Every structure is written in C-alpha cells, then in structure tokens.
C-alpha cells in the first residue's frame, strides 16, 4: 500500500507500523471514567467492513503518528491526517 503522508507525500506502507482503531486517541478521562469506560476503550472495536480510521506510525520515516481513513474492503485510502492535530481537535491537551 501507499500512504500519502501529509508532509512527505506518497510513502510505501512498509515504512509504517500499524496500531489500530483511531478511537484509541480518545483515552477516558481518569477523573470521571468508570471501569466500564476503560474496558470499552481498551477492548471493544467497531471493526467495520468499510471506512476505518486507524493509527499508523511512520517508524521508517519522520516518526509521526498518522490517522488514516482506509476502506477495509478495498484498502482505498481516502484521508491521511497528522494524529497530533487530530488529537488536539478532539480536545486532548496535557
């Protein structure tokens, strides 16, 4: 596969390491989260047959974490974002 890196352009996916569902950015709030919240965060996945937002790490490149929107049926990649920007948009900070 080829991942169109927002900063570096098209790169072979062999340079990347896959983590999984981008929902992992959405770590529960330690102040308020229930054990159930932690379980769901760590263990439950949508696992869609279709568009999937997922985390890839450019280990063989610039060490950026990316959020990639990829179709799990066709492998077509429709969107690539810098994970740090996504995290901030989702309200993550310190």
């Amino acid at each position, binding site marked *: 596969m080829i991942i169109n890196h927002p*900063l570096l352009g098209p790169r072979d996916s062999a340079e990347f390491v896959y983590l999984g569902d981008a929902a992992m950015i959405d770590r529960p709030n330690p102040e308020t989260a229930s054990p159930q919240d932690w379980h769901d965060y760590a263990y439950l996945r949508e696992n869609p047959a279709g568009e999937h937002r997922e985390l890839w790490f450019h280990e*063989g490149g610039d060490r950026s974490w990316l959020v990639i929107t990829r179709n799990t049926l066709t492998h077509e990649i429709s969107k690539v974002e810098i994970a740090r920007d996504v995290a901030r948009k989702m309200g993550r900070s310190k």
Partner: protein
Amino acid sequence: MSVHDLTPITALGATTAQADTVADLTCTEVTDLALASVAARLGQEKNCASTLGKLLGAPPPDAGKATMGTPYTAVWMGPEQWMLGADFGTHEDIATGLKAELGDAASVTEQTDAWTGFDLTGDGIEPVMELLSNINLRTLAPGDAQRTTIHHLGCFVICGDPHAFVRILGPRASAGSLHHAIMTAMKSAL
C-alpha cells in the same frame, strides 16, 4: 576541544575510513561528521527557526529537504525537528555549541555516534540505489533528503547530485551490515 588520550575507531572498526570502488562508483565511509538533533520546544517554533536560520545562513529545511551550508548542514527529521551536521574536527561537541545558541528554544541531543555515513560518488548511483531503497532517484533533486529503509535498516539518504553524489546515514551499530548491503548492490548492479 578535549585533550583526552582516547583514540576513536570508525564504525567499521578501523582507525581510518574505508573506501571501495566498483566500476566507476566509489563508496566511502564518512567519519568526520558531527551530528546533533534540534527539536523546537512547544511554542518556541519561531525562535527556534530564526536561530537556525542564522546558524544555517538559510531557513531550516522543509520536509524531505536538506541544506548544505558551512559550518552547519541540516536535514529535516520530523515536524519541527532537524539533524544538524558539522565538521567533526572543529565541532566535535556540536550539541553543547548549538544548545548555547538555541537556549530554551529547542531541545538539542548529540547524535554524532548514533549514525555512520557512506558517500556514494561517481557513475552508477541509480542502478545501485534502486537495489537498496524505494527512493525514486529519477525525481530526486539536489538537496532532497529522505528517511528510508535499506535492508531493514532505517537510514537517511541525502542527495547532493542524483547522478554523482548521495550520502547514506545509517545506524552506527549496524555499519557492517549496511556496508555489506551497499557493496553487494554495487557488485550486482555495476
């Protein structure tokens, strides 16, 4: 400069740089390069960039680029992060020097011996490089720099002139494996 009595060895384990020629292409071990990484502190990106600009005599390179100035060269490593290089003889303690210039604007880390370098000079760079990495030599321009993988090793490939000179920086501990890969490719392709 230190006046210590310890004799350095090269990444390949010798006291002098290794050089090998196959056909019209020469691979030379780079031993006179001092390196330090510079990463802008959060909120200090502008200060970091301007100080680097002064040091480099040019703005810090964009993604995928390198600048070849004196005394400092620079390669883009990642967002707000660069690898600066200088002559080892005059800048062995490059990190301390850069930190003094950059202060709180950036985190500076000595990287000199994290890496080892090999320069490919002469004819036949494309057929050799296409056996080593997926970089597209045909579109590579002078001043391009890419991090890539060579035989499972994470490397930087810095392009001086796609037809005459590229520099490969690879992990120092694997210098032997990297050198073997390059030589094998040269014998195979040339």
